[in-house]
């Protein structure tokens, strides 16, 4: 928070460079999360952009009680949810993944390794996409972004107890979805005595 305070202060004074710095600082993390909720890269980019715009417009209402990033996330999630309700957009997480271009073959990587890794990511993506929006969102916030329950509670506007129970249900659902993957997983602990 303290790192952001000077930038926020300068942004409030109309310093575009300062707000630009805030955007650059958080854009990728926000986008990487929103893309799982919004359903496609294009939609996620629109949501992220609108979130930053609204954050700027409402910046004077930000009093630093939470981290700027948490506040920004809350804005983004509200936008994502309302847009999805409006558009009834079809979830296409796979499309987003394909566009990400991450899963390129490695130099010197055995062909099987690449295919396995690609297939694995695809399965996880599909399983995630099969979850309900609320379960997907809470899983992404916790597992991929590492937010604490309290922060998730702020972002999603839920009581902490609800965060705990919903997160667990989400995990159980994903576990069910990924049953085959987990059985086949190289990292699944088979050594428990």
């Amino acid at each position: 928070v303290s790192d952001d305070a000077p930038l926020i202060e300068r942004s409030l004074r109309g310093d575009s460079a300062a707000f630009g710095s805030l955007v650059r600082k958080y854009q990728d993390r926000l986008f990487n999360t929103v893309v799982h909720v919004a359903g496609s890269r294009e939609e996620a980019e629109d949501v992220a952009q609108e979130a930053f715009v609204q954050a700027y417009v409402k910046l004077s209402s930000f009093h630093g009680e939470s981290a700027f990033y948490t506040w920004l996330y809350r804005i983004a999630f509200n936008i994502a949810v309302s847009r999805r309700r409006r558009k009834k957009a079809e979830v296409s997480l796979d499309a987003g993944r394909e566009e990400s271009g991450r899963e390129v073959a490695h130099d010197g990587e055995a062909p099987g390794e690449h295919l396995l890794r690609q297939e694995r990511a695809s399965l996880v993506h599909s399983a995630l996409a099969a979850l309900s929006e609320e379960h997907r969102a809470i899983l992404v916030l916790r597992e991929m972004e590492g937010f604490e329950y309290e922060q998730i509670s702020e972002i999603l506007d839920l009581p902490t107890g609800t965060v705990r129970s919903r997160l667990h249900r989400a995990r159980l659902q994903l576990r069910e979805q990924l049953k085959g993957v987990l059985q086949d997983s190289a990292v699944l602990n088979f050594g428990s005595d």
Partner: protein
Amino acid sequence: MSEPFSDELLSAYLDGELLGEERERVEEWLAASADHRRLLDDLKAIRRELQALPRQTLDAGFADRVLVAIHQRTSEPNSPPSSNEAPPPSAQQGSPIPAEPVNLAKKDLGMPAWRWFAAGVAATLLAMIAGINAAPQTMTQIGRVAQVRQSIEPGEGAVGAARKNPSPGIAATPTVPPGESVPTPDLAQRDSADASKQVEVRAFSRAMNKDAAKLPTDADRQPKENAPAPPGPPKAESPPLPAPSVVADGAPAAPPAGLESADEDFADRPGSRANAAKKSRAGGFANGRLPATSDDVVELPVTSEQADRALAFYSQAATRQTAQRLKNLERVENVAEATADEYAAGKALEQQKEQDVFLKGTASARTLMKLMDVAGDGVQIAAVEVTGNEAEVAALLDTLGVSEARKLATYSQVLRARGAGGVVAMQANGQKAGGEGVESIPKAAALAEPGVESPAKPVAKADAVEKKVAKAEEEKGVAGPGGGSEARDKFRGNSPAVRMRSLAGSGAAGREPASLSGAAEQSAQPQLRVRLVIVPAAADPIGPTIELEPQE
């Protein structure tokens, strides 16, 4: 145990959200029930799978588009900008967003706008030429070039901006605010000769520190503020990086705590890849010791040859997205051996936690054991991948001994043996880590035959991939799938089951029979590679990646 089991508490336990009595209760449950432990393991596995997903990023022009959108929004008569509550214009600093958010070409910056534009283009060309001529010998240099490119190159940003906000010129203007300098490449300070390079790598010291790794700190839990800003924003706001410790070129640094006694049992074995690597290694990596210190910084030597390989890789993989990612990189560190995803994972870690590490080095078998010991108490090894030919893997496991090999299997479940004429991958796949199965691993490697179809359900998916691979290899002219499944069936028993996957081989000689004797012949050019991936204990979802591999 009086309290009924609540798996919801288990989930909270995994997240480190339980304290005191609740935590103790969960630990009692775990101690009492294998089912509960299995559930916890599954939840951990789910976490790892999610965290292993590739991260997606935006292009460099996104921030400009946001500022343009803000400008448009705040220019609308019904949109009350926050600046209504901001100090009056006289008190404003910098460039007011409602006035001109990013289009510096329209600002009075001391010379006509076209000159700024021309200067930007010239700077871009110079940077590119410098990058080409210098043929960056380390990925650090590549990263610095990319850093400059992102700051001044319209490229993707212009395209993206045109898509969303067709305002020509805006995204093409330099994004560095007035008064703040564009970071310049440090190429001149880098010797491009063939001598070993010193590349700064931030080390994850917590992985070596049992106490520190046990519980996350508040700082750990607030990684967001530590995310390094992409290039372009004012450097003053960027969190300070740990100061690099200077390691004399070629001089070995002190080994980390717990690794002092890493010995050369395995490295000294005749014909071992580790031995060959030991002999050819220079300076800091002699004896296979990780030149980490208790500080947060170590330096690793990267030869120009390695850097060239990395550069070649990135050139080959220069898709639009890859190029874009390179542009987005703030800094590239010691990725001479890194693949794109490994590198991306490292960057993701850095973004999540400033002190995290993407560390690559070398290790002897004993060092590996030491790391495993450390990891057993505070961090968790997610996977250990041993790549070598059959004889080397067998030798490694012999060196480790059955108990250590069992530990390997317990922690990792991934062992791969790569022969010169083919790739044989073994994957333990069972519910228990039994001595028989573990001991059988080298034998399994020896007996594995390529292309055997798998009837077993849990491995059907992977086998489908194998078939794809085999087919692809066949199309390349490599020999087709081979013979029987006796060995495979033998190790796909009830418990423990060691699953072998035979990936199609390659090379002029076609598939080699995977046998210990054959492998011994192949080991004339040993290819042992140890890759160790460690994630911290459940309480901390963000883990370091430590890779250890002998260098050529």
